[in-house]
């Protein structure tokens, strides 16, 4: 099962390697890891999507908590958070396909950020599910390159207040 963890860390050099090194040495599998500064410039947030059972995730949480510059670890429960990922997708795009791809982009709400004679690059920020749909739609045209940032997630206040 996939779990999304949100980890607040001190914003010092070397902290990321302490956190990321933990995964390989403890044998945890992660799908993605995204880092960025928070509203407080002394603190960064690492969002991790990891694969595992309850035992693995509990261990992961506990081991993360042991890393000294880790301030807080939170595993999001299902439906408790909004997640999204930014991706850049370069598709093969000769002139005759341009309209098709533009339509797909419009339909999926992807932004066209670059066009060349033979390619078109889309910028897409959405959930993983929607990303996969977009890829399915673009595949027949020939995908040249994909760049993904990894998932970022934030707690849904609406879900919390309903509880």
């Amino acid at each position, binding site marked *: 099962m996939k779990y999304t963890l949100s980890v607040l*860390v*001190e914003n010092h050099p*070397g902290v990321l*390697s*302490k956190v990321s*090194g933990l995964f390989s*040495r403890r044998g945890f599998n992660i799908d993605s890891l995204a880092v960025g500064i928070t509203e407080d410039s002394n603190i960064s947030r690492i969002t991790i999507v990891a694969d595992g059972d309850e*035992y693995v995730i*509990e*261990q992961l949480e*506990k*081991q993360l*908590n*042991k*890393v*000294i*510059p*880790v*301030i*807080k670890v939170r595993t999001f429960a299902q439906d408790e958070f909004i997640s999204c990922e930014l991706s850049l997708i370069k598709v093969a795009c000769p002139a005759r396909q341009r309209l098709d791809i533009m339509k797909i982009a419009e339909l999926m709400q992807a932004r066209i950020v670059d066009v060349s004679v033979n390619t078109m690059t889309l910028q897409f920020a959405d959930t993983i599910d929607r990303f996969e749909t977009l890829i399915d739609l673009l595949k027949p045209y020939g995908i040249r390159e994909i760049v993904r940032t990894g998932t970022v997630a934030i707690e849904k206040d609406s879900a919390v207040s309903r509880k």
Partner: protein
Amino acid sequence: MISGAEIMVKCLQEEGVEIVFGYPGAVICPFFDYLYRTDIKAILVRQEQNAAHAASGYARALSKVGVCVATSGPGALNLITGIATAYMDSIPMVAITGQVKSDQLGRDVFQEADITGACESFVKHSYLVKDTAELPRIFKEAFHIASTGRPGPVLIDVPVDIQQGTVEEFVYPEKVNIIGYKPSVQGHPMQVKRALERLKDARRPIICAGGGVLTSGAKLRLREFSKRTNIPVVSTMMGIGVMPSQDPLYVGMIGSHGIQAANRAIHDSDLIILCGARVGDRAVSAPDQIIDHTTVIHIDIDPAEIGKNMKTNIPIVGDMKNVLNQLLKGVDYTAPEEWTQQIAQWKRDFARIPAKFEGYVEPKSFLEKLSSMLRPKSILVADVGQNQIWCANSYRLSDGRFFTSGGMGTMGYSVPAAIGAKFARPGRDVVAVCGDGAFQMSMNELATIAQNGLNVKIIVMRNTVLGMVHELQDLFYESRYAVTELDDTPDFRQIAGAYGIESALVSDNEEAEKAAAAMLKSDKPFVLVCNVHPNTSSR
């Protein structure tokens, strides 16, 4: 103006450091140069790994942070095994390494090694210092982190220009403020209550004491708890010494190399109180078999240990001493006599009489005898291999201490750790027991012993093989002794003699006891070589 090197030394003084174990090199020279002018002793070891082991022995003997120092590159790299050994056994330690100049970092200059990177998985925390002004805060934090919560090694890597750099003045911070590090020390009252509730129904309870009890200084409280409740105690290798060996409620060491009665007791129990024990694979090989018929209460300061190796019904996170106090306050329970009698019966039934070989020392009975010859509060440091198992199961102690590399199983640990322990406790008997394999890994430290006139006793169990693996080869490899024979083992008496250290060679128990008596009477270092038959088993 004050230099970084001077600040480092002043920090050590602020932390009450009286001794460091180390080895110099160009980029740690500024630090050693200032240290030289103070009362802090700097002990030169003969290889950096042994500086870490000596700091470990010192830390264990005094329950105080041990400090080791090395230069950059190979010096720092040699420390790693010692640091990792301390990490596995939760020993409070600060390792200080010199580093090449900050502006040369990453350029692969002479003696440069990324030591903070290399040690990442073996340290509780590490620092690469980038600014001289940061030194006081970093040292304060390092000592705090090393000694609180679950203790462990902390590495401080200091580039030489940071040591040479200057700041206006030295101010040592009074407090540390690490937002992400607040180890909980009190057990949650609800969990303590739940544990006591569950205990009421137990018919066959057992306490499994690990190294955490000793680390927390909770030995006497655990003894009191066991006595008051009549609950028998087994220990892990790291927990040896928590109970007096001869206490009727003490069963013995558990595990693949433990005693049968202890394993039986833990296996047949209906409630286990794990105290500061991480249930390593050598202690409990198949925890799943036990948990389906027993209740597990796990007390540990490190939440990550709870549930890691064994499923737990009632977790209590906290410092062992505090949690035991909490338990003692509320406990009203006595374990049934039938259970303790059953265990006593197993102890009798499963007792083994060691096989003797004519013309050789039988190590188990000798070690048992040796225990009675040592003064109270003696420290025995066992190395790794068969000698470790012999010591673990045959060294009898009440107020004494037993040190060994439990988690990492680092050969060569005993001699340097005994050196550290002796510096910490000069008034106590300190005996290192090792095999001829392990001894050859750190016998260069005889030089350190000689140079400091250090009254450390070394017992070498000389069986001319790497006994533990040799035994394994008998069991699983049809006695093909691949690379385990120490033929032409050197004459250890001559080696001791070369350092001006007295020695004896003995070939039966009577001789061994006589030599040990003479050895313990003298106030000089001594190497006692015991000829042991290569087929003597570890059990």
